[in-house]
């Protein structure tokens, strides 16, 4: 069963993966230091399929794609936030890390609770409280990239960027 890891507002990419640890393209290396500044136990204890939840402006700051890559490499199934910083959101979509905006789900959930997410419909079910939430729909262009599994896959599928 997937569990929630709850974070606050304005979690920036420097704390998701600090500059001193991102001088690499090795995903496993990035995963080892993911969120080390704010949740030191996270990288060790996160289970494949777990869900990151956050407040406003998740992923603000640097454009480093190492941030969503580190989260993805940890096996996180989806990041659900009240809002995302623009570059992080785009990076996550591009590399196929699912991201959902759902204010209500974040406000009504807590760290460690059990959760189920249907990525196709955006339906989020908190199994600890029994509550169900609907994430905000995606921009249609973003939805096509997500459906393809990332921007590279999208372009391969379409033959070009259009």
């Amino acid at each position, binding site marked *: 069963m997937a569990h929630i890891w709850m974070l606050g507002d304005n979690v*920036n990419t420097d704390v998701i993966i600090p500059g001193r640890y991102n001088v690499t393209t090795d995903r496993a290396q990035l995963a080892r230091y993911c969120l080390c500044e*704010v949740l030191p136990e996270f990288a060790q204890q996160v289970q494949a399929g777990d869900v990151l939840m956050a407040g406003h402006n998740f992923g603000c*700051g640097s454009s480093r*794609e190492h941030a969503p890559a580190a989260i993805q490499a940890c096996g996180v199934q989806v990041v659900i936030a009240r809002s995302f*910083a623009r570059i992080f959101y785009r990076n996550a979509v591009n590399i196929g890390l699912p991201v959902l905006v759902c204010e209500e789900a974040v406000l009504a959930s807590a760290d460690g609770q059990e959760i189920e997410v249907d990525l196709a419909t955006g339906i989020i079910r908190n199994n600890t409280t029994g509550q169900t939430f609907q994430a905000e729909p995606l921009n249609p262009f973003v939805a096509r990239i997500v459906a393809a599994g990332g*921007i*590279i896959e999208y372009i391969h599928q379409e033959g070009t*960027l259009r």
Partner: protein
Amino acid sequence: MGTLTEEIFSYKLGRPVEEGETVVVDVDRVMSHDTTTPLAIQAFRKLNQQNGGRVFNPQRSHIVFDHIVPAATIAAATLHRDIRTFAQEQGISILQEGICHQVMPERGYVAPGDIIVGADSHTCTYGALGAFATGMGSTDIGVAYATGRTWFRVPQTINIRINGTLPFGVYAKDVTLEMVRRVGVDGANYRAIEYTGELVEQMSVSERFTLCNMAIEMGGKVGLVVPDATTRSWLRDRTDREYPMLAPRNPRYEHVIEIDASHLQPLIACPPDVNNVVPVEEVGQVKIDQVFLGTCTNGRLDDLAIAASILQGKTIHPQTRMVVVPASREVYLEAMRLGYLETFVQAGASVGTPGCGPCIGRHYGVLAPGERALTTMNRNFTGRMGDPTAEIYLGSPATVAATALTGFITDPRDFL
């Protein structure tokens, strides 16, 4: 008809474009640096196996080494080596002469009406010259290297009107911190910011770079200044190409924020968020272990000039270290010619190779646990300059120089 952003997209696409539309456009330039290029190469290779694996245009593709120069570790040196191999294969010249956001405009690669994407969040700096420029991640940049195109949702625009005149001891950086305080760290998320008003019109291009550089600190996609005679004269010796002097026409702004600079004081952003801004005179006795003058926000000649004028003939406080890193080779050479570097070195500062320096905590001035720095950087995030228990304060070059003399956060007005 529209905001400067809408005007630029309409000009590029040859049809009226409005905010909210999702468009695919050709880009004028693509940029990445030594930290973000390796992942961009991976994306590029994954995408581009079928058409011979060439970048869309090597003359419009720019790789800048600035984040860890010269290489500080074997890991960094290895990344540099691999990027050099890629650049050579693609016919791209690597630029290693300063911070990407300083070098790109200096070399004339940025002009009004351009659309530029860069794998660094502070790419929004180029909006100071009227270009629509924004930061993206490595995969977007890999795609842009391969195709020469990208997609955008054309953003709505916030207009920040800055009027009045700068009081004694108050600089473009203080105005910028006041904006972040007012707008908040995500108040401009997904939006363009257009800076207008009499003070912006009077500002030098360097000061406009400072304003636009920190648009991302409010979540902004781009920060724009309408190109004018100041822009033209700055570009005169840097590019001979024709460019359109686009301007907003009956723009519909999402909202307008008015700032009267005449009432501002020297400001400081306290850790760990950039909008945590207070007047310098209200911070109390905050001991500072290291000051840092430099970065894409404040590493230009006018910044160094202000600091040098404060430090001239003096010595920094014995309990405080000072690091100075000019933003580019051009700035470095001019600062050397004018004697600023000698002033810094005589005062006891370390002067480093043009680049990002200690701003990302990898080399040349890393902080120990519990230490405190006052810098001219744009971010004060936890762990950015080294140990996560170290604290980072942000201020103007004048405040940084005054603080270097006293060892605690100091109002520069006492030293000017």
